[in-house]
């Protein structure tokens, strides 16, 4: 039990930093570049992604292993995952819209953006493709989503500071953001020897 707990924590750290979802696996780049220009928006988006990834992994795991596989329909996994993710985002959006105006104000426009975030589908798909057990699937979901939150926050902080610099006109905006993301990816790559 203790050994499993240690490997659970190590898996979270690994997915958070070493095998980062954005900078190593290149999922969710679209929203990373699009929303990562303001710190507040980036944190809101990151928190929403954490919520959706965790709950979609929690729901999709039993559906795949206890419904689709015994019925001989594992090839339907992507369709089912998309349905679960889209429904989850709609239901969460519905509750936020109805009961939490403050949260709706800060997350409102980012909720639909999560449905099209490939990081969410990527994590759920990876859990089944890699034949991870339930604990490790949750570690993947937690580590990956927190990794997304961390990187989008750091990226937004860097971009906010860069706006003050007098960069050439052709490099302003997305070009400089892509170069920054590349340098961040190289920095994260330096951690890949930690496991050895």
């Amino acid at each position, binding site marked *: 039990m203790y050994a499993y707990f240690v490997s659970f924590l190590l898996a979270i750290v690994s997915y958070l930093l070493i095998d980062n979802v954005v900078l190593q696996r290149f999922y969710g780049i679209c929203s990373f570049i*699009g*929303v990562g220009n*303001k710190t507040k928006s980036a944190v809101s988006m990151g928190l929403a992604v954490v919520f959706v990834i965790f709950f979609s992994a929690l729901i999709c795991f039993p559906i795949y292993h*206890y419904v689709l596989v015994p019925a001989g329909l594992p090839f339907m996994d992507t369709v*089912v995952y998309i*349905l679960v993710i889209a429904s989850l985002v709609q239901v969460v*959006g519905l509750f936020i819209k109805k009961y939490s105006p403050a949260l709706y104000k800060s997350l*409102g426009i980012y909720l639909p953006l999560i449905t099209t975030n490939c990081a969410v589908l990527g994590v759920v798909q990876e859990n089944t493709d890699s034949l991870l057990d339930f604990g490790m699937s949750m570690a993947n979901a937690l580590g990956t989503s927190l990794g997304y939150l961390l990187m989008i926050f750091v990226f937004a902080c860097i971009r906010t500071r860069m706006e003050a610099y007098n960069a050439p006109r052709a490099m302003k905006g997305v070009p400089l953001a892509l170069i920054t993301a590349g340098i961040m990816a190289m920095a994260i790559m330096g951690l890949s020897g930690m496991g050895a």
Partner: protein
Amino acid sequence: MITLAGLDKTTALIIAICVIAFLLVVFIVSFILYRKTPPPKGCEHLKIDDGACSHCSEVGCDLYAIYHEKAKDDPSKEKKE
């Protein structure tokens, strides 16, 4: 936990199809309810975030149509896509 492993193939298949149909119904109902629920007071006109909206392909979002109508008038916004 209840699994379908002990059931025969046909029954497991029927249950799986029912689960998929249920998910589809949940999605459709939640989509309709989400569209019908009015936004809370003070949030009727959420501000468009150029960075987020230019990269978003969610056509069901209210802001999608508003952003792309504005982008038609302002060619500099259209370039971002």
